[in-house]
């Protein structure tokens, strides 16, 4: 996907927080990434490594918290776990399943000094 743009946006959020809260150094960044968000975790890690270079987050450990995809099956009228956007309902095998969670891309929190 566009992991480089996302990495730049993450650094911008981190730098904004650092400015607001007088942080000198960020040692850990925790991100919530939904399994249906289209983000390739390893590509994002690599981009963050590049983007963080020379910043206050240069040495930050990046933790990716996976948010499992969820959907509402219109046939079963119940919430089910989804592994991909186009998957059928794991209970009844039918389509469609409306996505209700798992498309998140968020900066959750930081560990900083």
């Amino acid at each position, binding site marked *: *996907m*566009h992991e*480089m*743009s*996302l990495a*730049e*946006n*993450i*650094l*911008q*959020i*981190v*730098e*904004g*927080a650092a400015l607001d*809260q*007088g*942080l*000198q*150094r960020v*040692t*850990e960044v925790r*991100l919530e990434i939904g399994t249906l*968000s*289209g983000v390739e975790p390893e590509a994002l890690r690599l981009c963050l490594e*590049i*983007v963080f*270079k*020379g*910043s*206050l987050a240069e040495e930050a450990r990046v933790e990716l918290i996976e948010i499992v995809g969820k959907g509402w099956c*219109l046939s079963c009228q119940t919430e089910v776990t989804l592994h*991909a*956007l*186009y998957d*059928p309902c794991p209970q009844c095998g039918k*389509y*469609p399943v*409306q*996505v209700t969670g798992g498309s*998140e*891309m*968020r*900066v*959750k*929190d*930081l*560990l*900083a*000094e």
Partner: protein
Amino acid sequence: MCTVCGCGQGETKIEGQTHVHGSGHAHTHADGTTHSHSHNHEHHHDRPHHYGLGPAHAHAPGLSQARMVRIEQDILGQNNRHAAANRQRFREHGQFAVNLVSSPGSGKTTLLVETIRRLGDTTPLAVIEGDQQTQFDADRIRATGAIALQINTGKGCHLDAHMVGHALDTLDLADDSLVLIENVGNLVCPAAFDLGEAHKVVILSVTEGEDKPLKYPDMFHAADLMLLNKIDLLPHLRFDVARCMEYAHRVNPNLVVIQVSATSGEGLDAWIAWLRHGMEHAQAIRLETVAALKQRVAELEAQLRTT
């Protein structure tokens, strides 16, 4: 790189002009030339020691002084804020904006040229063209007599809301205009970037293969309308229209599909009707807002007269 756009600094160009930000925007340059950070990580005695603010809330000296900072921010929050501003602007001016997305070569520009021709001179409209390089597409649109503005994204693989906001500043469109935004040919990245449009319209041509909605589900999920283009070529191809539509509806049950051919003109009436309906709706909202404001002014004036 410009962290506002997420594109290469100095690479994004609007009508060939390098895109420069006004003051107040943060810049981070990938080569580090103008981006300076203090690397002094020694003790700062001008700042208090927050022993109790560590992750373990430890009050004992010698433990980590790192503290947890809650952020809870959407990574695309900045883009979404720009998109919301664009959407507000479209709403206030009764403009109907559509974001046209597809893979390269789906026939987007040809379809647009034919669309503009059929809408005729009386429909106020403008086209924002996104490509990595060249002005070719904007030139093709301008040949129809329509207003077109080219954004070159440089290395960027998608348009973002900030670039579109700048384009809108430049265009200064009439009220009730149709705004056709032709995104960079890419079925992946533009899905995630809201530009403030009313609808994403995905264009898939029958020469591409009917399984594209499953191969690139994000885009078909994000779109509200699919134009299945080049259907005049169906007799020469093994393309199963019904299967393609079934795949598309698996990914997005609410996706509306119109089959079109920019060459033969088939299906274009339905597409034009869809656009006109959207324009009328956008205009109606503007007029309602204006009417509500006029009524409010009249009420206030009446109050002033009585007091």
